[in-house]
């Protein structure tokens, strides 16, 4: 019996010892074997991820949004997918995915890459990530007018970041780009493995310089209505400093076309939907292309004679519009590129800048370069550019219209959102007083969607998303979708 008592005591004692000392170590198993600790990440893994996020969204569902609103294509009448876009009936519950991914996917990764790069004075990743951060932020500002910036991306330090007005953000971003450009990012080349992480330019830092300058030009041009003096000062400084601008397309052009590694617009609209024919040619765009005998119609629609639908006329029945059943589908492939800024866009922006601030000196060449680059971009010879396109005469407004309309025609599919933004900034293409079924309709003019729910007013922005509205008490009061953003015309 006595022996037994000793045994119990020993047993109990060892149990207590086990609990007291064994516990801590035995319980120390809470580091995930599935995901690396955040401290182990590097700009080399963060930067390409963030670029993927930007491309996935700007080149994906935002290209669908931008392309419908820029009237390249419209919702088919035999399906449903994009009715709310085409009728301007978007609410706070729509496009949350893009807001979420651009912030918590793209911008958070750019910011951490910048912080890590700065910590080790790696000014190459610092520049690349800063420029892409600015590019991504600009898309958000242009869509929402106001988003968090000065208090954003701070994690637990600020769970309710305030919204900054668009101009403040622009100014901040331009300063960030300038600071990154001021560093020595070119004396040490990226290693061959690092070059692979640069999907845009393969580590060519001179192209990054051009991209940075072109982005600055784009941002200043956006301000011409709201902040004309600042826009002029910024652009003339670029020219004074002898800035070089892009002469090549900047973006992602090497998708391998396999599932989960394809052009995001294709992945979304074709591969992952059971109906691949949701987006049909819009008469707004096809009428302009065919009127001008523009050979790009084959590239955009796969045929020289597309059968279009009128914009937003998806409720038409087969009796009302018998041709809609065979309306041409917007042509897409899994390997299509996503352009952030195209060469054509770069040239056409320079043409506008030269018109605005240098009396048009050199603008013609830039304009024609732009038009030709837009054809090269879709694999056409520059000789196939219709002669009428190269004519560049008239008043400033007439020239601006030519510049912007040519830009609009170059964005379809690869960069659709920009076509929508530029119309809001400049008013070109012009809006039509009549619907596209009317005999007096002028080819290429934007028409108010047949099923529009905004009383004849075109959409100008997205309303603040639910993922901000529901979670952040600093979200501003809702602004109607038809109110222009700060730089709008």
């Amino acid at each position, binding site marked *: 019996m006595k022996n037994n008592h000793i045994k119990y005591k020993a047993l109990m004692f060892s149990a207590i010892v086990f609990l007291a000392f064994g516990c801590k170590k035995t*319980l120390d198993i*809470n580091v995930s074997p*599935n995901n690396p600790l955040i401290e182990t990440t590097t700009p080399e893994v963060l930067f390409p*991820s963030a670029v993927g996020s930007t491309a996935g969204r700007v080149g994906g569902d935002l290209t669908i949004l931008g392309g419908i609103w820029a009237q390249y294509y419209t919702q088919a009448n035999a399906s449903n997918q994009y009715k709310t876009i085409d009728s301007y009936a978007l609410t706070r519950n729509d496009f949350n*995915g893009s807001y979420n991914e651009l912030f918590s996917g793209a911008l958070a990764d750019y910011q951490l890459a910048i912080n890590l790069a700065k910590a080790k004075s790696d000014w190459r990743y610092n520049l690349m990530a800063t420029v892409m951060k600015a590019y991504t932020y600009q898309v958000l500002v242009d869509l929402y007018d106001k988003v968090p910036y000065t208090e954003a991306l701070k994690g637990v330090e600020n*769970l309710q*970041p305030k919204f900054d007005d668009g101009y403040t953000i622009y100014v901040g971003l331009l300063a960030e780009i300038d600071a990154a450009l001021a560093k020595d990012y070119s004396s040490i080349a990226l290693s061959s493995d690092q070059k692979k992480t640069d999907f845009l330019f393969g580590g060519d830092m001179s192209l990054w310089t051009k991209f940075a300058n072109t982005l600055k030009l784009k941002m200043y041009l956006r301000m011409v209505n709201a902040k004309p003096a600042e826009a002029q000062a910024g652009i003339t400084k670029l020219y004074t400093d002898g800035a070089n601008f892009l002469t090549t397309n900047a973006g992602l052009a090497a998708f391998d076309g396999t599932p989960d590694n394809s052009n995001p617009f294709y992945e979304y609209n074709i591969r*992952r939907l*059971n109906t691949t024919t949701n987006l049909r040619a819009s008469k707004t765009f096809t009428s302009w292309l065919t009127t001008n005998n523009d050979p790009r119609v084959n590239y955009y629609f796969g045929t020289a004679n597309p059968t279009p639908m009128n914009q937003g006329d998806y409720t038409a029945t087969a009796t009302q519009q018998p041709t809609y059943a065979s309306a041409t589908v917007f042509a897409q492939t899994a390997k299509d590129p996503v352009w952030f800024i195209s060469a054509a866009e770069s040239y056409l922006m320079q043409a506008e800048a030269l018109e605005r601030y240098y009396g048009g000196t050199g603008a013609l060449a830039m304009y024609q370069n732009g038009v030709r680059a837009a054809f090269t971009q879709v694999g056409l010879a520059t000789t196939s550019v219709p002669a009428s396109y190269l004519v560049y005469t008239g008043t400033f407004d007439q020239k601006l219209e030519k510049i912007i309309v040519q830009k609009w025609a170059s964005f379809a599919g690869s960069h659709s959102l920009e076509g929508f933004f530029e119309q809001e900034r400049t008013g070109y293409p012009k809006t039509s007083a009549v619907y596209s079924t009317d005999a007096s309709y002028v080819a290429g003019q934007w028409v108010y969607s047949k099923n529009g729910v905004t009383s004849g007013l075109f959409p100008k922005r997205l309303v603040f998303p639910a993922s901000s509205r529901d979670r952040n008490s600093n979200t501003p009061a809702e602004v109607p979708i038809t109110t222009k953003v700060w730089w709008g015309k």
Partner: protein
Amino acid sequence: MKKLLQSLFILVFFAVNAMAQDRTITGTVTSADDKLPIPGVSVKIQGAAGGTSTDSNGKFSIKVSSSAKALEFSSIGFAAQTRPIGSSNVINVVLTTDSKALGEVVVTALGVNKATKTLGYSQSTLKSAEVNASAPASLFGGLQGKVAGVNISNTSGAPGGSTKVILRGYSSITGSNQPLYVVDGVPLDNSTAGSDNNYDFGNNANDIDPNNIESISILKGSAATALYGSRGSNGVLIVTTKKGAAGKLKVDLSTATTITNVASVYKLQDQFGQGWDGTYIPSENGNWGPKYDGQLRSWGAIVDNSQLLKPYSFIKNNVRDALTTGIELNNNIALSGGNENSTAYFSYGNIYSNGYLPSDNDSYKRNNFTLKGATKYGKFSADASLNYVGKTTKFINQGGANSGIGSSFYEDILQIPGDIPIKDLQDYKNKFFNVDNYFTPYAENPYYSIYENGSRYKSDRIYGNINLNYKATDWLSFQFQQGADIDNAISKIWHNKNAPSPGSYNAGGNIEGSSRAADAGDVIDGSVKTFEYDSKLNALFNKELNSHFDLDGLVGVNYNDRGSRVLTTGIEDLAIPGFYQINNSANKPTSTSAESHRRLFGAYASATLGYNKYLYLTVTGRNDWSSTLPQDNNNYFYPASSLAFIASQAIDFSKTPISFLKIRASYGETGSDTDPYRVFNSATRTSVPLGFGTLTFPIFGVPGYSISNQLNSNNFKPERVKEVELGAEIRFLQDRIGIDATYYNKLRKDQIIPLPIDPATGYSSYIVNFGSVRNKGIELAVNIKPIKTTDIDWNLNYTFTKENSKVTELPAGLDKVVLNSAYDAQFVARVGQPLGIIEAPTRTYSPSGQVIVDANGYPVYSSENVSFGSTVPDFVMGLANQFRYKDFSLSFTLDWHKGGVFYSGTADLLNFVGADAKTTYNDRRPFIVPNSVQKLANGTYVENTTPITEANTDDFYYHTSNKADAYANRILDRSFLKLREATLSYNLPKSIVGKIGAQRASVSVFGRNLVTWLAKNNNTIDPEVSNFGNDLGSEFGEFRTAPPVRFFGASLKVSF
């Protein structure tokens, strides 16, 4: 594991060899009331330790020495008897019921047996007979509707699918609400490995063979489960399995054959046929054509210059006739035997179940082996059990289609107009019904997805335990238990590749020029391993302190180690159609792997002090240390106490009709830690969600890691549940009427919530402790025995449950937590509301109360979602009726759930295709939304004169074109009344039974889920089904899932 096996074999061996002693007395114990044998009667030798108990046939066998004088017989609810030992080796005993008998013993927390009367909280126990009356394949089939406060539903209409068990409602907003399953003292894994919204391979608790179950104790409240600490907050189901009984070899056979078919199917409108926009269009998947006129019409593709004809009229029972009758076989054999020192038990069970879809691609096969042994040697005793479960589940894709990969059967079958005979399409390779020429390009032949796509889940699972006991003194014993549960499963999911041939009907050759997207096909191979080891060491004491006080209790420690490893690899786009290997593609396979591992230490103690056998105070406490909590903050204490007062024992009620009265009160705290890996921040492999599809790294040969969207925290504590429970049990008229009422009030606070945060912070969620939910409820069980004679027994059990949940707090800045959603409908937790309300857009009204419509005549929807109601029922009632006449018995169980709403994705699709009866409003003629106005730019309202045209009627019913009205047709009343179970059994007379050498035999015919009555506005689907798992998110509803199954069967049980 090897050790476990070894010990088990030693035990069984030992048990068989240990039989040798003086003389053996055998006999049968029967009830004076019904002459039926009484199982579980304790048989003891007077004045000596040890003893045995009767088996399920009331038989016992006990070795007695020559000095033994008498045997004592005692059992729950019966007056004890002492019988002298004479010269005969057979003693048959008839026990009479005793209303004052209070000795019923049940299994409580940590497997401790306690007299029911000492419990200060409500506890329900179900016996084997109740669990197995209708031969269900899982332990839950026989429990539905029988216990107040316990909600059991089959979420799946497929064999082997998941069962949802929720005790006392939902309280955890984003954590688990699953009860803990404990089998013979060891926690059992109840994960739903391998399952998702499209594939339901069942929850692991379904693996237990119900034939082996002796009893199930259901611990609902926190005081009852406090000894389980951080795993006890959602209640505990304690399963006790059968063990070997002393006596000669006993063989129990049971066999059941069940026919399965679909229980309830969609009721469709029968006035309008194929077409769209009011026009007959033979390539349409909708019922938006003209009115049925019975005329012959050609339909589908023209193939080889021929086309099919159909009468343009509604086909009755179209869906039901397209489904088949399945079969379910349930066979079990159990062998047991031993002497009073050692016993052994072996059983083998086999289930084969084939669902109501053609082919066996919806089927479930399971083999259960159980081996148990127990032995005693002096003060030592040991027992062990080893269970092996092998199962194979095949499941047909439910929910939404995986676009571009393959289609979903339930989406396809819903898109067949009411005038097309579905069952004819079964010949899916026929030239009219094949990939090229199926009648519509908007969907696929549903039979294609049955025969060409599929899934298979195979698991091998071993669980069991070893128990060592040492009885140190008559009042103190020690127990060590080691348990293990190891599951090793593989899953395979595949879709065949197909594409309409260029130029064919479905490649644009139809009247509408529409093409169906090709299916690339895919293969996904998965491997899931789960493990759980549980050790505990207890010291148990039980001492009569003096003539007034007695004390019993335990002190112990527990160590639990569990986890899982999942590896999946898949490819898209098959090279060779119909060959399902991950190398059969030009695309590279993509793999993901995930491990999860957690540990828990617990130290606990419990003591019950009894006073004069009528007042019992129990105090328990447990301290847990969890690996999933922040290290500096990982240790928590959970106290509980309860009081039971048996008034009828303390006070003389003999002059009143009251035969028993007990009052109980308890308070308990439990908790729950959280999932592993929520403390340190991490990066994740980059996969950019595109909305549809992803962009997944590596791309362009470059790997990517992205900051995880979840911001972790090292500053949180476990969720804590505090619960007060009050109850009373009263019986009248010699127990003819019994009422057991319980009130509980529990608060779950400090909920660990991945708080959604503005993505502008860089993250989309943040782990915090916040949010609380209060659940209050009443549980009532009434038992009435209107007739009780020797030949006739009538027993009614009525249960009533009313549960109110209320979200009392959410994190600052958050007015709701979204739990699930479909399109614009959201299932949310909102402060001040029950846990789980469905919100969606609705109409807006002018100040004078008229419907505001837009320029096209459609109602303008609200910018804010409005509540369509809670998913929590107003009340739940169950009625179990048992009627016995001589050897016949008839029983049935009704289950009524009243109130609540659910979202139906099936209704969504039926509205889209115009098959829902609600789409025939105004005979589909043009109409102006009644009492509607248009708002002018100047803010005034004018009467609306814009009609919804006939051609646009379809737009009126779909959420992309009419959000204001769509959701009212999709959010349906959750109420139902079900005849859950009905059985008619007959105990064969001894004369017949004896001829085959058996002791007892019974035959039964039975049915489960026999009749379902749904709410008036729900013509669509049984509200219990869901493809959103088996926790809170599933309460939202369903998204195109399988209707439930109905079972009819017959069984035979024989004991030798």
